[in-house]
């Protein structure tokens, strides 16, 4: 095999693998991307029931209702709109009324958000980035919310 042929084989093989990777990525992007929405977004954008989204905002004061066992119901608010959320499972550390929260799941037919994941915070002063932005947008941001970033090193954001 000459040098030129070899180089062509290499480049051809490389492009083929790259093509496969791009196809995989496009496919994955179509199926597995989850958009973040504030409660107001959910109402304004008419998010379809059954579409997986992340819902972020503050846990509304006085809205947490624990039913038998591990069923929890609460409301997520951005100051303008509230969306009821149901969740089954152990809530993360520092899940509290008045604190920021990100829930992942989908709306059911009746406008209730059924969450299968509640994202935890690590620190009293840390707020999920999306929540902070959503609050700023709706004018409910207080300066004392996030002065420090939460994880200094190598942590996971879950």
């Amino acid at each position, binding site marked *: *095999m000459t*040098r030129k042929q*070899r180089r062509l*084989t*290499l480049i051809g*093989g*490389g492009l083929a*693998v*790259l093509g*496969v*990777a791009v196809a*995989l*990525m496009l*496919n*994955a*992007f179509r*199926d*597995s*991307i*989850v*958009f*973040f929405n504030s409660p107001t977004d959910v109402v304004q954008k008419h998010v379809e029931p059954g579409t997986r989204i*992340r819902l972020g905002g503050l846990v509304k004061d006085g809205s947490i209702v*624990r039913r038998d*066992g*591990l069923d929890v119901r609460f409301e997520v608010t951005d100051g303008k709109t509230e969306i009821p959320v149901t969740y*089954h*499972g*152990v*809530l993360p*550390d*520092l899940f509290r009324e008045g604190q920021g929260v990100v829930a*992942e799941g989908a709306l059911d037919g009746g406008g209730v958000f059924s969450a299968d994941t509640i994202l935890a915070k*690590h*620190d*009293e002063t*840390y*707020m999920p*980035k*999306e929540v*902070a*932005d959503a609050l700023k947008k709706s004018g409910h941001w207080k300066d004392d919310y*996030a*002065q*420090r*970033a*939460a*994880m*200094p*090193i*190598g*942590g*996971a*954001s*879950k």
Partner: protein
Amino acid sequence: MIPELGHFALMLALGLALVQGVMPIVGTRTNDPVLMSIAAPAALAQFAFVAAAFGALAVSYMTSDFSVLNVYENSNTQMPLIYRLTSIWGNHEGSMMLWVSILTFFGALVAAFGSNLPTVLKANALAVQAWIAAAFYLFILLTSNPFVRIPNAPFEGQDLNPILQDPGLAFHPPMLYLGYVGFSIAFSFAIAALLEGRIDAAWARWVRPWVLGAWMCLTLGIAGGSYWAYYELGWGGFWFWDPVENASLMPWLAGTALLHSAVVMEKRGALKVWTILLAILTFSLSLIGTFLVRSGVLTSVHAFAVDPRRGIFILGILVLFIGGALALYAWRAPLLKQGGLFAPISREGALVFNNLFLTTACATVLVGTLYPLALEALTGAKISVGPPFFDMTFGPLFVPLMAVMPFGPLMGWKRGDLYGAAQRLLAAALLAALATAAAFALERGGPVLAPFGIGAAIFVMAGAVTDIVERTLILRVPMRVALRRALGLPRSAWGTAFAHFGIGVTLMGIVSVTAWGSERIAEIKPGDSLQISHYRLTFDGTFNRPGPNYRDVVGRFTVHRRDGEMIGTMQPSRRAFPDRNMATTEAALMDRGVSQIYVSIGDPNKDGSLPVRLYFKPYVLLIWLGAGIMFFGGALSLSDRRLRVGAPRPARARSRALPQPAE
């Protein structure tokens, strides 16, 4: 006084770095040996000054000098000494100090032990190393000075983020940084080769130990971080595809590719230009990782917005070094001479295959990590790219890699015998098929693909064993001869076999935990029992246990096997840290062979009931055991004679040796 000395030492190190970055290069241009010889002592002195600065910071932490802002914010007299020390790198400023300390440490090692390097290459490489150091000194001094004082020293500090007060995290960042920064040596040598415009196979031999060492540390660092997340976050997950984790995985993938392409370059003189590019890319990914973690773009846009100088400064360093290096590469790489020819089916071909898939997999991780940031910056839309994305892209790209891996070491250089290799792997393939069938028969539930994953893991492991069997001819020649052959094998051959075996072990752990792990979430009262897998856990009640700077609420569980025999107790707890008004979950783990029972608890409810997460993790320990085996393989390979001996061995000696060592 001590912090000021540290601050001053850092400034002196910056001055030295500037001298070391300029003079030797001028020396190589004007062919002035005196100017070139400045590099080595300057690198040693630089390390001494940075070590002094780091030491000054360490002393401030040890003596709890709360007049230093950094100490006040991250330390506390109630903390045990070990955490007071590790909290040095538990925060931004201190971790950057650790970064430069390791960087100059490596520079000093090159200066001290690089006596067999060509003068010009050594001078250029140390100069490049000094540029990197200078950029990061400036970053620390201008935006992240750890030696800033507060006018009225408080009596007590604020404490380290409790989640970081853990032995696992004490040593995770240094290992990770040793890996990240270790790749800077390969980068500096690559730039030096481009500056000089010539490169030969010996270059690969000089660079390989550094890459190998960095790769080993990164392997341990990633595994340590994964184990820490597993037991400390209380979720039982070992990998979240979190951007911070991806930031460490990307240099690992590129570094693994570099490790393999450097072998081709060393043995066959081929792939020179590609290896140089990989060396640049690997360190670039380390820099990108540093940027992602340190600029704060990930945790909060506000960390970036409150102090944008940091983010923009690191971004500047990123653009300067990556852009500069790639531009230099585009300009100078055509000067480098092409290497030897090889057929597509050959050891070289297999290693190219490895490189192709590793770098592509690395690219998918990069896209998945940066795409949300880019999209938000461009359109404002916020998305999250979670595990499904990586499962669908990274997973399929790793399958061919696992399938081809056992073939590589069995193929000859230049032109390989695919049919012969396949014949020799027949036993391994049969074993893999058997394991797949067994997994189908024995396990209920789980994804259909999982038994094939077990098969792939067995194939990789058996392939590594086959490699050694073929080299020693064990079972075919008398035991004594086989043993002598085994002892005569180059250590790098053993290293290859161990590292590949380790990959198989890790894969096996990942597949079985993901497919067959079981989980129960419940709310229980004292006296209640929960069944999981073959075990039954009875909740006895909770009690309080005080610690140095925290208070534990401990839940006590008695564990029985299904046949009724008691095998022990487990005590997960909720750990409250009053100084920070926060709590962490301390999971309890019980080893059953290489499987684990995992219990974590939430805050007790008012009625005395306790939320519990209970997991059974089959073969979970294999994940980290495999990483340990990879590290061991790397260490064996690092101790190989040819990496210690400067001059290439004569060709005659090599042809007499057994089949060529493979990496």
